[in-house]
């Protein structure tokens, strides 16, 4: 039978027993390797993080006099009391994540790492930073404390981005 097919020149796609088991074995190893890779990725990707809450209590509004820019270095935010009301800026530089600082003598926010400069509304003045400092959601809770959600950006200078007391 096999001889006949050879004679007629047909391509024999059959695999013999040895080839079949070799393919089965290699295929199983491939699937096991893919499973191990998926397992390793899931293992290294933490499901629970013991990081501080993104919501920060900034205290009573009267702590911040009109026209002041106040940094909280532990949470990395500014609370700014302007004529339009209170608003919050991220203090983390948009370039490579260093903590910026308010320079009262120059009226700018400056980054010590690579020299980016921003104004008190977060707008970029100069430096390698690609984007302005983002505004963060700010509101008053029932006790009259200012709360800031660091995980939520809000549009700059929008009505809802200010808290008025």
């Amino acid at each position, binding site marked *: 039978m096999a001889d006949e097919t050879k004679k007629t020149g047909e391509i024999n796609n059959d695999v013999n027993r040895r080839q079949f088991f070799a393919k089965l074995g290699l295929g199983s190893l491939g699937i096991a390797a893919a499973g191990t890779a998926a397992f390793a990725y899931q293992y290294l990707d*933490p499901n629970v*993080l*013991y*990081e501080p809450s993104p919501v920060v209590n900034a205290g009573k509004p009267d702590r911040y006099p009109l026209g002041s820019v106040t940094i909280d270095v532990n949470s990395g935010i500014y609370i700014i009391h302007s004529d339009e009301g209170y608003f919050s800026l991220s203090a983390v530089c948009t370039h*490579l*994540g*260093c*903590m910026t600082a308010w320079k009262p003598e120059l009226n700018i926010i400056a980054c010590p*790492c690579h020299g980016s400069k921003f104004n008190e509304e977060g707008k970029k003045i100069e430096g390698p930073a690609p984007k302005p400092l983002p505004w963060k959601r700010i509101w008053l809770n029932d006790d009259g404390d200012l709360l800031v959600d660091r995980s939520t950006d809000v549009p700059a200078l929008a009505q809802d981005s200010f808290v008025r007391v």
Partner: protein
Amino acid sequence: MAKTIDQHFDDLRGTRVWRSIFRSGTGSSTLKRALAIQQNVFLHLFSTKVRTRMLSFSATWYLGTLTLGTFLILVATGIPLMFYYHPSVPQAYADTKDLQFVVSSGLFLRNLHRWSAHAMVFLVFAHMFKVFYRGAYRTPREFNWVIGVILLLMTLLLSYTGYLLPWDQLAYWAITVGSNIASAVPVIGEKIHFLLLGGNAVNANALLRFYVLHCMILPLAAMFFVAIHFWRIRKDGGLYSHDSEPATLRAQAQSGAAANVAGAKEGQ
């Protein structure tokens, strides 16, 4: 008559215990000396015979060997440092201070580790410049150049991960900046940043991950590639391959030109 020290050593090499460990045996014949290299698990990576010219200072400036030397110093000093260092947020900085001021010889070990790390980065670059400007990356050594680039990457990653471990302001902000550079990778950048730090910011998870990378994963990977790197030196014809020497290349070019002239004459 009393035996000389050399004779005592020869007796030692002839003992059954010694012969069970080192099979090549005594004697200084060419064969015995070749066997001493070939039958040693560490030395068998290298050629059994080398030309003396290959070992001259001018051939390599010993830059690769010196790099290995700094790596061995880093292993030898890094392991004792691990006995006093806890990779945890409350303890890491205090342990570094203790190593500096309290632990006997801690200052010496830590400084030796630090200076060797700086020296290793410098020597790796110097080695690669030397190889590049001498054209030693060319055929048949292309693959060993690729291994060398991987080893450069290993060296830089070892430097980077070790930089976080003192857990001071310099370390914290350097790793903040460096990991933010990683998040500039298109599409998967943020994921790489998250997996590298084990979170969204440089914190306890990041310190532990960098410690494991610095003390286990990267040194083992580096040793693996160093072994291939040394083995390939032999496989690619030694440090001073006859085929790639300028004189050989000139001779080949001339004989090739002569053959072309001869061929042209026959053609007529």
